């Protein structure tokens, strides 16, 4: 007869506070959102009736929802590419100069600036009446009339991606820099003896050895970027002409401007499912593959 493992009560007791916090801050709000999504609740706290899957049907047949999801795709892709590339470049440049702490700290500066300040800096720099960028581009003859980075539907998304990437790339820089320091110097020395050039060293040694970290950075960065709402709200409020109206903006607008809490909750649940599927897929394809490739 197989003996059952005894319950480790002290261990359970030690994790209990964390479990309670998790239940209070994650499980309960998610459960409330799921519950609300099956009602016709208009505002928080208002009495509501059971409405079945009506809100889900409304969200899934709303072109604005799909458009906002498409813009979230642009947002994620733009941020992931730009932040990773810039962070990688800075990490490669500064990894060999570990003693130059000042430079590394300088790269970290945008990260410690509050989002509100980043939004103000961005809008001031690009204001067509008194902004530095339009002034300089006019002075240099690059642009012959006033322009506003966030005021045009064609430019707003790109400008926001640049602003947001500037704010957050130092985080990825730190992670990648840390990963680079784990690559043993002996490997580079051996490769040099074998006549490998810089590209070979990068593509055959550096990249494979840090690819797992890059995969995790990609996953975290994607989920993080997807949920960014504050920068967009502070700079463009989803405009102009809905050009930066991403999925989180849709959720907020539906709840607090269109006053439809139930529909907003349904959209939140759908997005949560999307992101969970994406995370599982990404982890299995990118992260585990990179892990096994080591």
């Amino acid at each position, binding site marked *: 007869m197989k003996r059952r493992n005894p319950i480790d009560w002290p261990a359970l007791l030690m994790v209990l506070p964390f479990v309670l916090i998790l239940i209070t801050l994650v499980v309960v709000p998610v459960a409330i959102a799921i519950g609300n999504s099956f009602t*016709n609740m*208009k*505002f*928080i*706290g*208002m*009495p509501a009736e059971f409405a079945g899957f009506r809100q889900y049907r*409304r969200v899934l047949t709303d072109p604005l929802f799909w458009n906002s999801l498409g813009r979230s795709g642009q947002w994620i892709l733009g941020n992931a590419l730009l932040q990773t590339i810039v962070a990688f470049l800075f990490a490669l440049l500064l990894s060999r100069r570990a003693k130059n702490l000042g430079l590394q700290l300088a790269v970290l500066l945008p990260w410690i600036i509050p989002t509100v300040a980043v939004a103000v800096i961005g*809008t001031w720099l690009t*204001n*067509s*009446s008194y902004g530095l960028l339009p002034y300089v581009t006019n002075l240099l003859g690059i642009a012959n*009339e*006033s*322009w*506003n980075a*966030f*005021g*045009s*539907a*064609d430019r707003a998304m790109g400008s926001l991606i640049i602003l947001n990437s500037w704010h957050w790339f130092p985080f990825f820089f730190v992670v990648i820099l840390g990963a680079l320091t784990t690559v043993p110097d002996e490997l580079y020395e051996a490769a040099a003896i074998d006549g490998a050039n810089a590209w070979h060293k990068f593509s055959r040694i550096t990249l494979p050895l840090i690819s797992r970290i890059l995969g995790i950075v990609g996953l975290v960065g994607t989920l993080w970027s997807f949920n960014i709402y504050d920068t967009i709200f502070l700079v*463009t*409020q*989803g*405009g*102009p*002409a*809905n*050009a930066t109206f991403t999925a989180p903006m849709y959720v907020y*607008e539906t709840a*607090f*401007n*269109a*006053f*439809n809490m*139930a*529909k907003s909750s349904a959209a939140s649940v759908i997005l949560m499912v999307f992101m969970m599927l994406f995370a599982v897929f990404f982890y299995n394809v990118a992260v585990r593959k990179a892990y096994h490739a080591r």
Partner: protein
Amino acid sequence: MLQRIVPTLLATLLIGAAVAQTQITVWHMEQPPQRVERFEAIAEAFNEANPQYEVEMDVRDWNNVYQNLAVAAASGNQPDIMFAIPDFALTVRELGIAQPVTDLVNDLDAQHDFIDAATDAYFDDGEHWAVPLYGMEQVLWYRKDKFREAGIENPPETYSELLEAAQKLTGDGQYGIAVPAGRNLASDQVIYSIMLTSGAGSMFDAQCNPTFDTPETVRALQLYSDLLAVSPPDATSFSWGEPQALFNAGTTAMAIEKGQYLTPWEEESGRPAEDLGMARIPVADEGGQEGTIYYSNGAMVFADDPAKQEAAHAFLSYVLEPDVYGEFLGAEPGLFFPVTQSGLESETLWENPIVAQYRDYVEEMIAYSEYGALFGFTGGYVCDEITAVSSQNLLAQVVQQMATGGLSAEEAAAWGQARMEEAVADFRSN
């Protein structure tokens, strides 16, 4: 001994109960410091004159007041009084916390004679839902110094004159006008004023279905699109503050806005009062009509406790006493207009230094309010559906579609019609 202590204790308790204060909280969204200070002063004066009550003013942000209120109401901590505008009041009523104030409005009407337009917007389902406190409306502001430099003698009266003047005043880093195109209430209001002067003020039919896409709307949108071409490129992010700042700085020569332009004019522009011009909003060349957005800000009562209701009614009655009312309106002279006949005759109103300095303008604005209207409240009926349109700033979104979405006026009108139909259907089907 005991025989002496017990009556003394009882007497103390009775006296204590008799003088116990009833505390009420008032939320308002007038954030500029001078308005906050003036409202605080009015509340303090009331508290001193009525020691049985204590009114506390609490300033909130228009951008998130609804979320604040919804959360407060859910926990039973809503304010006892809250300032509101008509379409917002409709939304707030859905929370189920608003108390009708019909008897109070009728009493105050008998004493002070409300302007009909001020009370009508809050009358629905046979009840009054707010006590009107002050009116607001838009006019055309123009810089006389810029007009002189450009050789323009008179303010524009028609669309073509407005556009011609704006184009003439544009150049060398200066823009003829600053019209907002941000997704906000400021843009909603300016485009609506222009729609009114084009004869497109009624956005709903008698069944409250959207009737936005009309030739009159297209004409108004075309003018707005043309004015955006002579506005600063940042117009798509403009709200209330930016056009005024640019106007005072001399970067723009005209703006369509409410009376808040009076107070800071001399200090911020460095120009004398005589250089600030004010005129009625130009009307369409053919078939146009006088019009401007006008709405009364009212006080909704949420207190359901009889003692708090009594305190709320006492405070609102106090505010509308002519002498107090004049001081109250002085929180932003030129922007806050009286909504009662007795308020119009208030000495303290006309003694206000800014009102006295620009008396002609203030009188003209009061006369102009005769042509005022508000979206969703025209035609003698109230359409609850306006909340679905105004809460999402759909008028501002239409403007943005022209400003940067590449749509023509005709296409923007059709786009707006479709979006309004969707919003109304969504509102009704919830």
